[in-house]
């Protein structure tokens, strides 16, 4: 098991952001997390690499116990890749440097090793020609593909995607999803917060539906789309798909 979340809760004052969440993800699995806005899905995924702290419960990821007070979070995070809604490329660094800097400073790879790895990944996401540009010179879709390459450069055991296409213009969503589909087919363990139900149908193993901080459904893809989801999930699905 790569990710094990048990009885996790988190609240801001009286407001429960996460309420007794349980989730386990096996190696090679692709899990899509969906739900209405404010349902806690982004918070949950940020708890998985310790960007958000949990108040109660247990989380282990890639062999680390995250909820141990003495957990060395940087060590955990270097084995867990994360892609953000707003890309968060480093604007002061070139595309190539965005992909090499953590390899050098965190993984202690040499400049040559890091550059070779970065170029291979740029080829994989189809952006080799952009390597010397700065992020602001690229389209949103290109930036997000670079962000995926940057995370992959650390050879992660798991990839977390936090609404990776929500900030994109519609015509750029496809190019990012293509990279994610390719990654899923290559056997990467992935947790994706997304509303892209087409992506979920084609590569997800399981769908997790969240509402009001609770995990309401955690079912196989075919069950979820085949009418065996909870009534709350079905209501949500109708809204997402009818538009």
């Amino acid at each position: 098991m790569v990710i094990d979340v048990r009885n996790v809760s988190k609240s801001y004052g009286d407001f429960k952001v996460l309420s007794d969440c349980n989730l386990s993800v096996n190696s090679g699995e692709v899990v899509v997390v969906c739900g209405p806005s404010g349902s806690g899905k982004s918070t949950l995924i940020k708890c998985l690499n310790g960007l958000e702290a949990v108040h109660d419960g247990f989380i282990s990821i890639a062999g680390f116990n995250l909820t141990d007070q003495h957990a060395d979070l940087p060590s955990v995070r270097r084995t867990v890749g994360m892609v953000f809604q707003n890309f968060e490329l480093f604007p002061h660094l070139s595309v190539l440097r965005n992909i090499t800097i953590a390899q050098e400073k965190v993984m202690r790879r040499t400049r040559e090793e890091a550059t070779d790895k970065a170029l291979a990944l740029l080829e994989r996401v189809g952006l080799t020609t952009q390597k010397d540009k700065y992020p602001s010179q690229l389209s949103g879709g290109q930036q997000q593909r670079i962000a995926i390459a940057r995370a992959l450069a650390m050879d992660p055991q798991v990839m977390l995607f936090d609404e990776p296409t929500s900030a994109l213009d519609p015509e750029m969503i496809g190019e990012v999803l293509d990279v994610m589909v390719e990654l899923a087919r290559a056997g990467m363990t992935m947790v994706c917060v997304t509303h892209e139900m087409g992506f979920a149908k084609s590569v997800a193993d399981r769908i997790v539906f969240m509402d009001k901080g609770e995990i309401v459904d955690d079912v196989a893809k075919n069950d979820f789309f085949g009418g065996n989801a909870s009534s709350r999930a079905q209501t949500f699905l109708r809204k997402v798909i009818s538009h």
Partner: protein
Amino acid sequence: MWSWEGFFSYLSNEYIFQGAVTTIWLTIAAILLGLLLGLIIALLRMSNVRAFSTFAAVYIWLFRGTPLLVQLIVLYTGLPQMGIRLTVIQAALIGLTLNEAAYLSEIIRAGISAVPVGQQNAARALGFRNYQVMLYVVLPQAFRIIIPPLGNSINSLLKMTSVTSVISMEELLRRTQILIQEKFMVLELFAVAAIYYLALTTLWDFAQRRIEARVSRGHKTNVSLAEQG
């Protein structure tokens, strides 16, 4: 009567020129040391440890709330009473640095706060440790943001070094005053000093514009989207 001859001879006077050189190195040293101390104060100010942030707040309050003139006099003529004897140069440099650090720390803090939180999250998610997040991601971006106010600080520091003349630091203004006492050409000599200060601040203006152009690399949005088609 105004003497053009006197004015031009002092404009190229070696003694005055050396005073201007002192002004320049004093400014450079004070800004570099002030930036270093200011960064430390800014980080303390932003610390979650209450004692650190309180210490920084008190420091800033104290050094921004009292005149540089008073700080210099305390350092140079007050401290010997407690057995600490500083040379003129030490007192001038320490005084300017301590004072400058208080202002710069607030500029640096504003710069750090202006870097979006998402950038820190992205850096953390890659496994960067806290100091690496600062060093490689936050500070380079904060530096670009603080260049305009930092340029202002350097401009005023160039002129503020003249205050050290009161503790007999032989910079531009002090040397001008010494010559005035000998030659009585008050207006000519002050005009020469004013021209030196103007030349220095103008030169700095040019330098600042070049630095701004250099660090804004990568921040010009939408430059080549059209080119890519």
